[in-house]
Every structure is written in structure tokens, then in C-alpha cells.
């Protein structure tokens, strides 16, 4: 790993009136890392992520994503990241091919690139026979894999995944994580939020947010050692129990 830093925040804060959703979080993410962003519901994960992807303005603090400032250079940030949300993010009434063409087109790929990369993607996911079916007919697991593949089709520097595996069966989740590893090996940094603690074990490093503050940040192995816990689940429960904020 080259130790190039792709996300860097310093006391990043977001307030909604009197409520401080994200309170002075500071962390760094290295290139090619799989960075797990954990926290209970309402801990401020999604708000923090929204600031990083440029759709929410921070109240104070600073942050750089892919080398661009989150206050002034959101346009450049948007070009250099991919995003997949917890809600299914493709158009159900468009076919697989049409979804690929649409998103590749939005990210400015040329027709040739769209053609070749789209073909490769469909072959890789074994969807040759389904490519002209509307996405709504696919099983959820396939949809999520497709959505992830499309999110990284334009080779972003960082891909943000907001609870990507919600509601997906364990086997498909495992396959999904294989795809994440492959992307990370290819140099794409993965920033992922999740509720599944077994998934937290797959991450290179994990941060745990409680009440808008990052209370722990290290590799899963070190965290387990530090909190004398057998699994990430125990670590998480130990920390999240201290939360005062309700859901």
C-alpha cells in the first residue's frame, strides 16, 4: 500500500439547529483501504457521509475527499467518487443495459467505453441472458451486485457504500464482499457503512460512531485486543451501549 491519503477530515461538524448530528470527527482513509464506518441508527453516519459526498454542507471543520475540498470543490468530488445507497439505486423499469448506459453516460464515459465496459460487466456478473430484462425482475442480491458494479464502472477513486447489503442473504453478501475486495485490490478505496458485524471483520480499518463522535478507530484485530472482546459484535455493543441518544 502506498499510504496515499484519499479522505481526510478535521473536526468536521454538522449541526441542525441545536442538535449536533456530527461532532468534530477527524480521521484519515488511505488509498485502497476498505474503511468500515459503523454506528447505531441515529449515530450520525449518514450525515457524515453526506458531507463527504458533497450533498450536505458542513457547519464547521474541514474535509478533503480525493484531494478536493468539501466546501468549494463538490463538483470535482462528484466526478471522482461512486455512490450506492441503502435504498436500491437503479431504475427498476429500465433494463440492465439501459441502466448501465444511463449511469455511464451521466459520468461522462464515451459510447465506446460504455459499450466495452458494459459488455464486460454483464459477462462478469453472468447476466448475458438477462441484459434486456428490466431490473425490477431481478432478485435483490443480483440487483445489489449490479448496482455496485455500476457505481464503480467509471473507475472512481473512492466508492461510498451506504449499508449496501441490507436485506441480502448471507451467500450473496459473501459474494458482494468478494466484489468489494476485488475493487479495493484494483486501487479503489471503499468507504462502507454497515449494520452487520461480521462484515466489519472484513474491513481493513473500522471506525465506530456513538452520538455523533468517533469513539474507536483501528483495525478489527486491534480493536478486539483493546476491548478484550472475541468479536467485533462485542466491541460494538460495548461502545454503543454508552449512547445517550435514542433512535
Amino acid at each position, binding site marked *: 500500500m502506498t499510504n496515499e491519503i484519499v479522505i481526510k477530515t478535521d473536526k468536521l461538524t454538522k449541526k441542525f439547529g441545536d442538535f449536533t448530528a456530527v461532532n468534530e470527527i477527524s480521521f484519515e482513509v488511505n488509498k485502497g483501504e476498505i474503511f468500515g464506518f459503523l454506528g447505531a441508527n441515529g449515530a450520525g453516519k449518514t450525515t457524515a457521509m453526506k458531507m463527504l459526498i458533497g450533498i450536505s454542507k458542513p457547519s464547521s471543520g474541514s474535509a478533503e475527499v480525493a484531494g478536493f475540498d468539501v466546501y468549494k470543490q463538490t463538483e470535482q468530488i462528484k466526478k471522482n467518487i461512486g455512490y450506492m445507497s441503502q435504498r436500491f439505486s437503479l431504475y427498476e423499469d429500465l433494463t440492465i443495459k439501459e441502466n448501465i448506459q444511463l*449511469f455511464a*453516460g451521466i459520468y461522462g464515459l464515451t459510447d465506446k467505453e460504455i459499450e466495452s465496459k458494459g459488455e464486460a460487466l454483464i459477462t462478469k456478473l453472468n447476466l448475458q441472458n438477462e441484459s434486456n430484462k*428490466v431490473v425490477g425482475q431481478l432478485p435483490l442480491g443480483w440487483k445489489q451486485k449490479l448496482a455496485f458494479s455500476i457505481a464503480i464502472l467509471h473507475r472512481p477513486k473512492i466508492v461510498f457504500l451506504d449499508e449496501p447489503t441490507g436485506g441480502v442473504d448471507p451467500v450473496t453478501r459473501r459474494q458482494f464482499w468478494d466484489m468489494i475486495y476485488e475493487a479495493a485490490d484494483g486501487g479503489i478505496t471503499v468507504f462502507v457503512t454497515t449494520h452487520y458485524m461480521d462484515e466489519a471483520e472484513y474491513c481493513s480499518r473500522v471506525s465506530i460512531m456513538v452520538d455523533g463522535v468517533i469513539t474507536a478507530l483501528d483495525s478489527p484485530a486491534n480493536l478486539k485486543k483493546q476491548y478484550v472482546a472475541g468479536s467485533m459484535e462485542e466491541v460494538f455493543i460495548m461502545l454503543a451501549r454508552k449512547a445517550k441518544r435514542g433512535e
Partner: protein
Amino acid sequence: MKQLFTFIRKEFHHILRDYRTMMVLLGLPIVQLLIFGFAITNETRNSAIAVLDISKDEATQNVITKLESSRYFDIDRSLTSSQQIEQAFKNGRIKLAVIFQPNFQNELMHSNNAQIQLIADATDPNQASTLVNYASSIIMEYQSELNDQNKLPYTINTEMRMLYNPELKGAYTSVPGVMAMILLLISTMMTSISIVKEKELGTMEILLVSPMKPAMVILSKVIPYFIVSLVNIASILLLSVFVLGMPIQGSIFLLIAVTILYILCALSLGILISTATDSQLAAMLISLLGLMLPVVMLSGYAFPIANMPTILQVISNIVPAKWYIIMVKSVMIKGMGLAGIWKESLIIGGMTAVFLLISIKRFKIRL
């Protein structure tokens, strides 16, 4: 530019794939126009009327024949006494009774003053006055024919002319009204729903994270419905000219130009609604209740604005459809040019600008 094109293509996929909605979008104007143009009309044809003719002379026969030969009346001659008239009204057999005085012809020839009584069933006042008008104008016509033959001095002729719509065709009011309504329905409701749908499904978030600019997202939502609206305009105009027999007296280009202006106004209203709500259902209700009702009630399409209470007359000024209907009538029926409708065009243009400004402001707050 390529982004925009890709995105517009996607919108067309949405529209074309949902073929049920598409059928409604393209079929509704045609069905509505035919219903309003043919079935629901203020014209009264073949109304049952009764004649009580005790006199039974040449003059009464002439009047009755004249009434009969008009296409408005079906004549029932079976009545023999005035008691039967009320009975006929009560059981709803007739809408109008024409009663000649006894010795009609004699009185007419000698005293120059014969009486015909018209009794109408005014439970439906509009229909009653229409029927009475038809009947009395037919009788007047007969009278003037008599006067012509006799060359009597000191006759007063009342002449009626229905300007612009000599046959009093219902299509003349229904076509502009249907155009105003359909365009509002498609442009406003469909755009607001399709924008809000993206919010509801969560795809709007994906679009906001992408390099696509929000203004481009909105623009590419608007263009397909603009095109659908143009298709509808074409079908409405073709239908009203070739099927309903309506003329286009003024310039067709001016008519299309003011229509495009109105579509833009409706589209910007749709964008405004989409910034105000996050659910498709709410967007639809706002469009239907907030727009359709005012269009039907306050645009002058169904009820004349001049007869409304002052407060409603004032409110009717903020209904874009009111101004559009005035413009369509001016250009299509009266054959007026831009000089006659510049005020209305300015009002609609101004409304469009206001809607867009508020939407842009609200959109920025959201981000």
C-alpha cells in the same frame, strides 16, 4: 450535452414503458374533447315540446311547421286542453308548451295582435331559457315573413346575430377549455410526479451525488413532457378542426406560440409543486385539487366569470388557464393577432417567471 441527451432518453424509456399511463396521456385529450364536444353540450336538440292548438287554422299550422322543421324540437300535437299541459310537464314528457290563443289567425289578420304563450319547464333554467329563445326566434321569423308579404307600415324587425359562433356550437367553448385543462394536467401533474418519484425511490440522491447538475435533471424531466404536450396539441387541434368543425380564424403559428407559452407556465408550476412535496400522492393531490378545480370553476370555461361574486372574480385572475382560454378564443375564434392578446401573454409569461424563481430558491435551500 451528452449527459442531458442520455437522461432525456431515460425519461422517454420511463414514459414509453409505462404504457398504461402513456395511453391515458395521449388518449385522454381525444376522449375528453369528444365528450365535451359532442355529448356534453349546451345545445338543445330534439327537445319534446307540446303544442296546444285550439284554433287549428292556416297561421297556426304554419308556425307549427316552422317549429317542426327546425332541428330543435319534437312536436307532440296530442294535447287538446290546457289541463293536459300541466300533466305533461309533471310527468316530464315535455320541456316546453306552445299555446295558441283561440281564433289565432283571425286576431292576427284583423287586430294585428295575436297571442302565443310559451311555457317552459324551468327546473333546468338554462335549458328552459334556451328553448324559449329558440321558439320565440322561430316565431319572430314567421312574423317577419308575414310582414314582408303584407308590406305593412311601421313594422319593427328584431334581428339577432350570434357573432363568431353563429350556430352556437358547444365546441367553441369546450375546445379552449379542454386544451387548458389537458395541458395543465400533463405538464404540471406529470412533471411534478416524475420528479417527486425520484425522491421517493431514492434515485434522486444518486443523481445529486453524480456530476449531473440539478438544473440538468430538472430540464431533462421537463423536455419529454413538453414533447408529449405538443403531440396532444396537434391531436386536439386536428380533432377540433376536422371532426368538430371548428375554424382557426387567426394565425395558427400565433396559436401554437401562445400554447407553448402556456405549456412552459404549466411545466414551471409542476417544478414548483415538486419542490414542495416528497410524495407522489401529495404531488398528485396538489395538482388535481389545487389546479383542476380552479381550472374548471374559475377559468371561465364552465361558468362565466362575469357572473361570479367579486372575490371569486379577483381570485380567477391568478388562474393561468383563464388567460390562456381568453387567448385561444381570441386567436382561434375571433381571428385576432398578437396586438389583441399581448396583455394576456405578458401575464402568463410573468407567472412562469415567478414560478421558476420560487422553485430555484426552494431547490437551493434543499441542498
